[in-house]
């Protein structure tokens, strides 16, 4: 028994099918999956909404704020790294979508506009939400956070009521865009077995059967070349009559080594996420006040709208411009155009994005983690006065942040190398590699510098 387990574990690490384990297979195929995780998540979501609206008005004391911004938000990129878009399978918004759809759904086809411009809409929403968070203080205000969650709930209900499957999750969710990018660097992959799928005539994974509905995010495992959209809900595993579906473990970032059809909007989002991490870092630095004062002197206005928007624009444009510069230099050494290089090599930033995002939120998770416990205990009248919310000392957190950034840098560097090696030969590989290596090093160093500076807490 032990030797069988050991062999199985080793096969998982070698890229073997996790579903070969009968316990995992039974669990994924059972009607309890993913509901057994989905429903408790929905209950917690309701508690969070209640707390955000009717709990303490100070974010510092609010259990909903702590659960959302100190636990869930920092955990999200970590989940994407290890489990791909599994969160999307148990996300309360998806559950609400499915519930509404089940009883009153019209199941209209997805409008062509959303199909065509979905990722751009996601990019715009992600930028808008980040901007509004800083302008209106969504994270610092429990009601602000509540309003954001209710806006998303309303959008999800509208989507579930009128459109088929999880249209919102696939084409509009701002987190879905982030999830799509990060899960491509993730370690879990679901896909069909090509030789089995080649003989399939049912396409049950897409259309659904009496066992489960068709893929909620409009994926067809037979044709899937990316994990960007798969939410690992297991419906295709239940539906497939040929047991073709495999779930495998792969090295982080592996999918990004071979992107068959790179999309400019994905590369754009990758650069924008880096800008957003810059903004999040800069505005939480203790020197942010001094930067604002300097900006006020330069712009001649004390309007936070104006001064923050300028900072925001600079932070967004900086990584985009640097990626553009590297692509321009590379285009002089390879035959590709600036746009082609931008699109192809923009994917390499995803590893750095993921590292920087996790590193930034690691501070909140580890320096403020106990606030989840304290605000939770306070609901029952328990005293937590004077206790530190930190789970780990700041120097130790910083060490982890630096380590993560180095890993992210190496990951990005390797992706650049693999993409260059796939597309070019001989000296062109290194001539293409160099400007991107400088770009990744620059972004990594900038992040490390920001992490060395003292940072304010969320709670």
């Amino acid at each position, binding site marked *: 028994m032990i030797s069988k387990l050991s062999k199985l574990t080793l096969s998982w690490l070698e890229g073997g099918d996790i579903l070969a384990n009968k316990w995992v297979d039974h669990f994924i195929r059972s009607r309890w999956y993913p509901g057994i995780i989905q429903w408790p998540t929905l209950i917690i979501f309701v508690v969070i*909404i209640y707390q955000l*609206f*009717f*709990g*303490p*008005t*100070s974010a*510092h*004391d609010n259990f909903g704020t702590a659960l959302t911004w100190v636990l869930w938000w920092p955990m999200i990129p970590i989940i994407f790294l290890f489990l791909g878009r599994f969160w999307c399978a148990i996300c309360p918004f998806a559950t609400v979508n499915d519930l*509404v759809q089940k*009883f*009153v*759904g*019209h199941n*209209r086809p997805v409008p062509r506009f959303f199909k065509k411009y979905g990722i751009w809409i996601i990019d715009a929403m992600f930028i808008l939400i980040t901007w509004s968070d800083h302008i209106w203080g969504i994270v610092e205000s429990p*009601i602000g956070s*509540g*309003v954001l969650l*209710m*806006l998303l*709930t*309303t959008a999800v*209900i*509208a989507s579930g*009521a*009128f459109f088929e499957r999880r249209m919102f999750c696939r084409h509009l969710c701002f987190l879905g865009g982030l999830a799509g990018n990060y899960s491509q660097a993730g370690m879990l992959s679901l896909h069909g077995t090509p030789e089995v799928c080649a003989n399939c005539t049912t396409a049950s994974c897409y259309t659904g059967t009496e066992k489960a509905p068709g893929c909620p995010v409009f994926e067809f495992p037979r044709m899937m070349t990316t994990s960007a959209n798969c939410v690992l809900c297991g419906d295709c595993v239940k539906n497939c009559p040929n047991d073709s579906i495999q779930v495998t473990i792969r090295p982080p970032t592996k999918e990004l080594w071979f992107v068959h059809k790179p999309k400019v909007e994905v590369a754009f989002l990758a650069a924008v996420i880096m800008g957003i991490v810059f903004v999040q870092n800069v505005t939480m630095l203790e020197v942010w006040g001094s930067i604002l004062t300097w900006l006020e002197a330069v712009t001649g206005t004390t309007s936070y709208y104006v001064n923050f928007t300028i900072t925001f624009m600079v932070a967004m444009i900086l990584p985009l411009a640097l990626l553009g510069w590297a692509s321009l230099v590379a285009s002089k050494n390879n035959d590709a155009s600036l746009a082609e290089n931008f699109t192809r090599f923009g994917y390499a930033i995803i590893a750095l994005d993921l590292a920087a995002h996790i590193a930034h939120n690691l501070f909140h998770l580890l320096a403020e983690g106990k606030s989840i416990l*304290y*605000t939770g205990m*306070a*609901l029952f*009248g328990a*005293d*937590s*006065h*004077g206790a530190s919310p930190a789970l780990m000392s700041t120097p130790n957190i910083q060490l982890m942040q630096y380590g993560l950034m180095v890993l992210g840098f190496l990951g990005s560097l390797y992706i650049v190398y693999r993409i260059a090696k796939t597309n070019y030969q001989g000296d062109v590989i290194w001539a293409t590699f160099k400007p991107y290596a400088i770009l990744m090093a620059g972004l990594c160093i900038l992040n490390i510098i920001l992490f060395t500076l003292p940072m304010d807490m969320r709670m």
Partner: protein
Amino acid sequence: MAQTKSIRWLISGLALSLLILMLPGTALASSESEESTMVTVGGYYVSLVVSKPFKTGGNPFHLQILDEMAEPVGGAQVKISATPSSAMPANDTQHQMENMENMENGADEMSGMRGMQHDMPNMDAAPTYTSANDMSGQPGDYAGIIAFSAAGPWVLKAHFSIDGQVLDAEFPVDVEASSSAFAILAWFIFLNAVLIWAASISRQKPVSA
């Protein structure tokens, strides 16, 4: 099929009921009526008058102080503290008074507050302070604004000095969640109920065969 249809009707009914219930609820949240609570301290009648129930956030109030002859007492120094009931140890009165004395002396208002917070057994809702000023033209009436950081039972303590006599009057109050929070959530629920209701009704006419 029939079961699905009846479930759809049930949902429509629930969504519509929710709409109907939300409207008067929102209207009630904005209605106002003046309420007064009176306590007797050291021969003075102290009344706490509020125009609407206390909510989280800032709340206007006024205190009315009358003497034994029911004559208004003007010129009193009035300080107000609000403390969550769960954070009120039995013997904290003296300590709170010392803090308020610090504030009154103007030595270091913030240190007084910090001192108070430091001894707070419950961080869920921090105590707040304010002073009540004489309302011009209405002797014996003192007005101010007091902030509550959380919903639940609180104790409002009026600390006042009249002719060298220092007195405390306590008013247990119930603080509700801010009506704006309620109204915002109510409107979202209303909107979502409308969406579900509209989808449920229009679904009876299939979009395509």
